[in-house]
């Protein structure tokens, strides 16, 4: 199964290269999405946790959650993409390159999640940068060049620093000579604390760049805003998760080694800084795609805070990650609908969405309600649990700041969504988009809201996070 997920995209690239047909692109991407989804479900149902050591890629209790989230979002994006790209007037060559890049991007993300070796995870995280660079540059405008330059340059520096972290981690391991997570966990107690702590600083800043944590987030708003909407959805809902996953895995080494208090302070700092920066920028935002990008930064901040809290906080982080991926993917895809209808990303140029396209406007409002953690959104459970954990650990000031910043973000989002949806519109006539540009968002939101009412996987997640 794992081999199929990892080998298919390479064969698919070959097929796209050989069969020079304009439609083959979408067919292959959709086919890979289906195969990915089916394989992921099968892997999650009968995973075998005992062969982690032997294989570079394996499924365990934790990564199956990330894998299934990636699969669901990719399937939704693949369906949406077939509608979004329908009237794309790009050359066949450009579309073919788009196909290669999407397949390799998903391949590298899947590899990162399934990898049981820190070194391989690092290599594949680097591969995600390279594969997604073309996707961000797809529109080939002046702005997209600027965005992709920042993305490649900042992320490459981040990844290079993460490699320094891995080297320092290797120094701390003494004679272990292995980067398998299992070995690292089993021997963490005898690692040299000085090098281990230093390595986490580099790994957190390096991989944190990819995750979009402040103060190393500068690429994120530009890249998310300039890439085509399906790609923005993938970047926000899956790529950031992969980076979070690697940090989470490395964080466990510090917990076992008993020097996690230092790491927690760093995570708190970066988490709250992310919340602060996101709230400031969302309050004054003028571009709705950038607004969603800042919202991603905010949510990554929440994940970092949950991870730093430990215990139920980490469980809440994972629940938050699931919810954020589903809802943010839907939000970004709906922003693609708006872009198709109005042909602008400026908030002030968009009014009366409800009279132009009722379905899009409802999706826009529901995505907003979901991301703002209005019950029954699944994010309500996660944010409530994080707040509860904070209060339980007597972080009263921290919880007040947390609530305050979330309220500012909520107000900023509400202001924009309300203005775009219901203000008067006299210029635009009714818009008609294909059903594939609505259906994926409806399904994703439905899952997010149903999980908010009935969440049967709490124990499964808790089980996967033993030791945090």
């Amino acid at each position, binding site marked *: 199964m794992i081999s199929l997920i990892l080998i298919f995209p390479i064969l698919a690239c070959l097929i796209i290269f050989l069969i020079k047909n304009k439609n083959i692109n979408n067919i292959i991407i959709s086919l890979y999405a289906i195969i990915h989804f089916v394989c992921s479900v099968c892997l999650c149902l009968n995973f075998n946790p005992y062969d982690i050591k032997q294989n570079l890629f394996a499924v365990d209790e934790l990564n199956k959650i990330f894998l299934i989230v990636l699969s669901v979002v990719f399937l939704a994006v693949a369906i949406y993409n077939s509608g979004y790209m329908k009237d794309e007037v790009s050359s066949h060559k450009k579309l073919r390159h788009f196909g290669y890049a999407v397949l390799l991007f998903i391949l590298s993300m899947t590899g990162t999640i399934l990898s049981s070796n820190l070194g391989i995870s690092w290599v594949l995280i*680097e591969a995600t940068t390279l594969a997604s660079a073309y996707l961000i540059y797809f529109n080939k405008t002046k702005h997209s*060049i600027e965005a992709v330059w920042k993305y490649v340059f900042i992320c490459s520096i981040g990844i290079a620093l993460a490699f320094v972290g891995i080297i320092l981690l290797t120094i701390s391991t003494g004679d272990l000579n292995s980067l398998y997570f299992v070995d690292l966990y089993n021997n963490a107690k005898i690692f040299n604390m000085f090098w281990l702590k230093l390595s986490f600083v580099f790994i957190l800043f390096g991989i944190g760049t990819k995750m979009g944590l402040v103060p190393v987030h500068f690429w994120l708003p530009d890249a998310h805003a300039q890439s085509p909407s399906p790609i923005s959805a993938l970047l926000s809902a899956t790529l950031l998760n992969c980076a979070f996953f690697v940090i989470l895995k490395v964080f466990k080494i510090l917990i076992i080694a008993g020097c996690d208090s230092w790491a927690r302070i760093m995570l708190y700092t970066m988490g709250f800084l992310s919340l602060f920066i996101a709230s400031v920028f969302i309050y004054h935002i003028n571009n709705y795609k950038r607004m969603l990008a800042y919202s991603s930064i905010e949510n990554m901040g929440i994940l970092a805070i949950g991870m730093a809290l430990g215990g139920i906080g980490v469980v809440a982080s994972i629940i938050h990650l699931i919810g954020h991926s589903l809802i943010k993917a839907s939000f970004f895809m709906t922003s693609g609908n708006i872009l198709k209808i109005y042909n602008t990303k400026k908030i002030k140029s968009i009014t009366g969405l409800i009279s132009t396209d009722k379905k899009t406007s409802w999706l826009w409002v529901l995505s907003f309600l979901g991301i703002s953690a209005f019950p029954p959104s699944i994010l309500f459970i996660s944010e409530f649990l994080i707040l509860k954990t904070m209060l339980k650990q007597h972080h009263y000031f921290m919880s007040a700041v947390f609530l305050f910043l979330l309220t500012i973000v909520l107000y900023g989002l509400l202001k924009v969504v309300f203005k775009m949806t219901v203000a008067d519109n006299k210029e635009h006539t009714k818009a008609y988009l294909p059903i594939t540009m609505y259906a994926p968002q409806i399904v994703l939101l439905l899952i997010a809201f149903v999980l908010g009412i009935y969440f049967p996987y709490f124990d499964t997640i808790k089980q996967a996070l033993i030791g945090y």
Partner: protein
Amino acid sequence: MENIFIILLGLTMLYIASTSRLLGHINMLVVQGVLLLLISIGGLADEQWFNFEIFNNTKENFNHILGILFILIETIGVKSILIPVFLKKVLNKTHTHRDSGANIPHFYALVISSLILFAGFMMANLHINSFKLISPLIFGVSISIIITSLWMISIKHTVLSNVISFITMENGIFLLSLAIAKEMPIVVNLGVLLDIFIAVFILGMLVLEIDNEFRDLEVSQLSDLKDYE
């Protein structure tokens, strides 16, 4: 002998910090590649397995041979030949020969980078127990190279200088990886190679695109995307 090469590698950063000619920077990249090869050979010579007998029993020593091949390809092939040649091509196409508008005058840049290198040497002489796990001189110099490169990325004005500083940072990291007595897994090494190779290629392509689109390779041109108007 190995220590002399390490110190020379640190000194190349002073040259890069104190000049504005991009061709000079690229030539220094060639020198850095050669020095890295010499340092790694010096380091490998101390290893027990590094003798010519390893080539007799190829099956057992496959990983070691791969390691040596990797170092040869990485230092000479990629760092000293491929990247400089590619960058020279980009340089000729874009007609950008100098980075004269750095935020800090060259004299001060030289002083500051010297101080960073000095701090690196001082760090190497700290008697901390944990430092016994690695070669302190390599650690000190590589950290100073990484910090100087990051600092130069922030003060230099043309995108090509940024790419060159990025490569010097990668060289610093490569030196740091030599500080570990044992080898990194070969797959990770290949990943590093891929990283440098493709990152430089993509960055190089982007430099050309930026040149086409903006008609100027100043970083300040790349600030159109912002949140306020």
